[in-house]
């Protein structure tokens, strides 16, 4: 985010777009530094695909500008923007062989034949498409099609590579595999990439910069771990992380030199969290209502002198092998906690389990603005 504008390969400024009276993009600002991998993520309808298509030139925008390299491309058609795109449906030309699919874009640009051949060969080797070159798309499996779609982008040497949920049509195992391939590919050719997904695992693992979109606006952006660890709003906190973050009502209190957030702390079965005073210093006021966010992964069963923030009344334990999830109730609010494999075996439903959490893993939000304190 601290990149000087000159180094940004793609910049969107104040982009707006509406379909009739229905605003889709409400002033998006976006920068993608040269050679970096940006991921647009958000729930369906947040405008991420529209933004991608606007960058590609497949949608016109109502306001704002889009710059690629040092050119303002806002009014240019897709072919003059020098972008390559991988579609969710792959959009392979059904009447062309894999080889011709790969070469299509280069041929349109009247690239010399020998260069086409070299680029196609290079891409096909890189993606393991060599044995498939003479086949038609309908003779390929889903994964193979996906690789052809990527190959078609790779041969292009475009300024910017766009991916529109490219993995959503693959099964889980293949998805993980291709995800890694995409990242490797990116590192190898150093392509500036804008990638749209609704899958947060993809978003987290692939992104250099994560852009969370919500309601046609950028909700938060930054390196993925930063966003994950310091969500700036209830929405971002809730959107990233699986299982979802636990949200509890609470009140700020200053007790014994410490700030805490609690709910009827004196009553049994309720909770009291220590607060990261450095992070939230500006928002700490005695008696202020807050929403407390705690990720299931960040809590643990308290042992020894671990500070206990509350007792979870367990309803159900999900054992996932390497770990487990305890679903239960904390002070009248549903709550999920991660357990390690051993605990998943021993914790029984109806039991009460003491839980602990590190103070810097406790997120506080203003219940009315839904922003982080």
């Amino acid at each position, binding site marked *: 985010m601290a990149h000087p504008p000159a180094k940004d390969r793609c910049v969107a400024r104040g982009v707006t777009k509406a379909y009739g009276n229905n605003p889709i993009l409400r002033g998006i600002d976006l920068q993608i530094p040269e050679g970096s991998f940006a991921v647009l993520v958000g729930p369906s309808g947040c405008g991420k695909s529209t933004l991608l*298509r606007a960058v*590609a*030139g*497949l949608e016109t925008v109502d306001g704002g500008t889009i710059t690629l390299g040092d050119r303002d491309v806002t009014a240019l*058609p*897709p*072919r003059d923007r020098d*972008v*390559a*795109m991988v*579609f*969710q*449906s*792959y*959009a392979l*030309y*059904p*009447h*062309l062989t894999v080889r011709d699919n790969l070469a*299509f*874009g280069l041929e*349109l*640009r009247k690239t010399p034949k020998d260069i086409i051949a070299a680029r196609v060969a290079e891409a096909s080797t890189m993606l393991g498409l060599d044995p498939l070159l003479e086949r038609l798309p309908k003779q390929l499996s889903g994964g193979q099609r996906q690789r052809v779609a990527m190959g*078609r982008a790779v041969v*292009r040497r475009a300024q910017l590579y*766009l991916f529109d949920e490219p993995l959503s049509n693959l099964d889980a195992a293949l998805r993980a595999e291709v995800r890694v391939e995409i990242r490797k590919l990116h590192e190898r050719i150093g392509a500036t990439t804008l990638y749209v997904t609704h899958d947060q695992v993809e978003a987290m693992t692939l992104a250099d910069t994560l852009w969370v979109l919500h309601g046609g606006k950028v909700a938060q952006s930054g390196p993925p771990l930063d966003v994950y660890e310091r969500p700036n709003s209830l929405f971002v906190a809730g959107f990233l992380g699986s299982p979802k973050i636990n949200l509890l009502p609470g009140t700020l209190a200053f007790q014994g030199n410490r700030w805490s957030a609690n709910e009827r702390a004196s009553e049994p079965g309720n909770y009291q969290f220590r607060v990261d005073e450095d992070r939230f210093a500006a928002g700490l006021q005695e008696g202020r209502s807050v929403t407390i966010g705690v990720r299931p992964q960040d809590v643990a069963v308290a042992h020894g002198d671990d500070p206990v923030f509350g007792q979870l009344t367990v309803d159900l334990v999900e054992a996932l092998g390497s770990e487990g999830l305890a679903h239960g109730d904390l002070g009248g609010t549903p709550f999920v906690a991660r357990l390690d494999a051993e605990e998943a075996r021993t914790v029984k439903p109806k039991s009460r389990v003491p839980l602990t959490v590190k103070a810097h893993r406790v997120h506080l939000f203003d219940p009315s603005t839904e922003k982080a304190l």
Partner: protein
Amino acid sequence: MSPPKERVPLWVSIGSHTVLAAATLFAVYPVLWVISLAFSAGGDAPEPRVVPFPAHPTLENFKQFVGLDHAGGFALFLGQLGNSLIVSLATALVAVVIATPASYALARLPFFGKEGALRTLFATQMFPAVASAVPLYVLLEHLHLLDARSGLVLVYATTAIPFAIFQLKGAIETIPVDLEEAAMVDGATRFQAFVKVVLPAARPAIAVTALFAFMSAWNEFILAATLLSRKSAFTLPIVLQSYVGEHLANWGVFAAGALLVSAPVMILFYIVQRQLISGLTAGGVKG
């Protein structure tokens, strides 16, 4: 890759074949009468018959129709066959060439007047042709296209175009927009995307549309007889129809001719069977 064959209960199998056999009989029976008539010598006694089979099979009717019974007749027939082929193929070509871009725009692009255009097009199908024949003649006269194959092609193409547009519009709507967008991102203009991606993908539908246009031109005789005034320029349906006179008709030759005239259409049908089925997938007409 093929899915495992589902096991079909015997009664379903028998049932389907019964239905199909009955329908086929229904479809073929009247045609058998035409065939029987075509192979009959004149003079067979009229009998109440159920099985269509000529009493004395002969090829005379066919010989007469193709002009083998008199000198120069066969050459004339071949010329007229050529006319029919040229006119019908050209009609198919012109109809498809004109209808395809228009149906692409109607299927894909927003434009002012689109609804009105579609309604008008559908409305033209509702107007009985009885009213427009004479104005059409006058129009062709002004264009100096009377008695020219090109004029006939124009007339046929215009009757074929509205249907072709509906047909192709439906087909193009089923082609994923992604393909064109991919092409445009790959560096194609919209027109290049249309030519290099949409057209190939719509090929089955285009083939079927062409077949319809071909058929409508191939079988038509009233306009052809009205517009053409040279024997060597006649198309086969005119020749066929000339065996039905004011007082007496030569039904044997008429039937033989009908079979010969239908044969190319049947062959085309057979060839494009598969496309026929997928091509009509979305014969989409929205009023």
